[in-house]
């Protein structure tokens, strides 16, 4: 299957600050991709370059098979985008902005727009400037989904929503986009939402890719081992590839593993121990360790 997004050494500088630094990644079509990073990691800049709203200083990229610099208009026609900050014409009413956006697209789905206007109970006659932050986000989602895009890009979409609305928002994305075999690119620092729905996650920091893996693989291989051996063990045991770090307190070790878990477990279990615990790590714990650890 063709990837929906391919970025190759993409870079963008603002003055001396490298906002995006040689970023390469691939997003397979039909998946839900979580794009994670702390604030200021370069997530929004990357998205803007993917949509041709900002020009890269180096590298290249293709979105839905089109070049992000030369064919960005074609990309935008096939891509739904919910920005972090909703910049819609404040003086228009809900109905007016829908009528305004519709002619830009050939595949606009009126039924879908109507369904979700009713679902969210958005008042058609109300001016956008009078809507709450949550309502603006809901309206932006409708405007992004109605053209039935092949790719939906969401930049911190749920930050203005409460817990119930966030879950609803995710369910709608699953129903209208993921279950139709389309691709979702979900950028967020809210790990809970990503953890629930993503297939693949990428973690970026200072514009650089730190890790990209399936969420299932992250959760099955990134673990902590807490072990108390019965006798002294050789120090080489902890220098195996896949061990990120370890701490020792007397005969107790806490070992952070990020790869080759099964081999490491087999090696450790050659030595008699008193206790041996494998501690699962959720996405938040994995994220914090990676983002804190890779200081540069």
């Amino acid at each position: 299957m063709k990837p929906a997004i391919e970025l190759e050494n993409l870079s963008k500088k603002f003055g001396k600050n490298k906002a995006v630094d040689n970023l390469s990644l691939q997003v397979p079509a039909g998946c839900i991709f979580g794009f994670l990073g702390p604030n200021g990691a370069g997530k929004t800049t990357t998205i803007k370059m993917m949509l041709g709203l900002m020009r890269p200083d180096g590298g290249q990229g293709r979105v839905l098979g089109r070049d992000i610099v030369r064919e960005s208009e074609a990309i935008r026609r096939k891509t739904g985008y919910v920005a972090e900050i909703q910049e819609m014409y404040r003086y228009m009413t809900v109905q007016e902005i829908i009528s305004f956006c519709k002619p830009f697209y050939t595949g606009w789905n009126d039924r879908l727009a109507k369904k979700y206007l009713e679902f969210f109970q958005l008042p058609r006659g109300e001016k956008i400037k009078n809507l709450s932050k949550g309502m603006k986000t809901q309206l932006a989602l409708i405007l992004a989904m109605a053209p039935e895009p092949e790719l939906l890009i969401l930049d911190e979409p749920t930050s203005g929503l409460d817990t119930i609305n966030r879950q609803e928002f995710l369910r709608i994305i699953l129903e209208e986009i993921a279950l139709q075999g389309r691709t979702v690119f979900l950028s967020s620092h809210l790990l809970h939402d990503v953890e629930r729905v993503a297939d693949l996650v990428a973690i970026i920091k200072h514009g650089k890719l730190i890790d990209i893996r399936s969420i299932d693989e992250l959760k099955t291989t990134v673990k902590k081992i807490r072990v108390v051996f019965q006798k002294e063990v050789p120090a080489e045991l902890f220098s195996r590839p896949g061990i990120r770090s370890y701490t020792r307190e007397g005969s107790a070790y806490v070992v952070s593993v990020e790869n080759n878990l099964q081999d490491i477990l087999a090696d450790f279990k050659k030595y008699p121990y008193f206790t041996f615990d494998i501690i699962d790590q959720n996405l938040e714990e994995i994220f914090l360790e990676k983002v804190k650890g890779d200081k540069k």
Partner: protein
Amino acid sequence: MWYYVDPHSGIPIYVQLKEQIKKAVATGLLAEGQQMPSVRELALQLTINPNTVAKVYQELEREGVLQTARGLGSFVAKRRKDFGPQQESSLDNALEKLMVEAYQLSVDADTLYARFTEKLAAWKDRLKKGAEGQ
């Protein structure tokens, strides 16, 4: 049946869901021939990725727990009566793991045997209650 997953646990969602279904089938909560919810239904009900549900169903089908009839959906499979070399080797692997663990914990063979018999009796009891509850 009521399904539940904790997306914020360190255990992958597909593992949680798979174990839950296997256990429900083993205890008779899901009966032979019973229809499973569709991938779409379960994904929306739990607000999780449809690919995750599909992966669980595929793996359970491969393990003989579920059966998929094209166009009709997934059903709880008939319990396999055959105990071939493949099944034998899975069982041996599981037992060997148990014994290695016991050795490393300095549990002697008699204690292990006693605990195993105790657990097996409790498990049989549960299966019986499950069957009566149907």
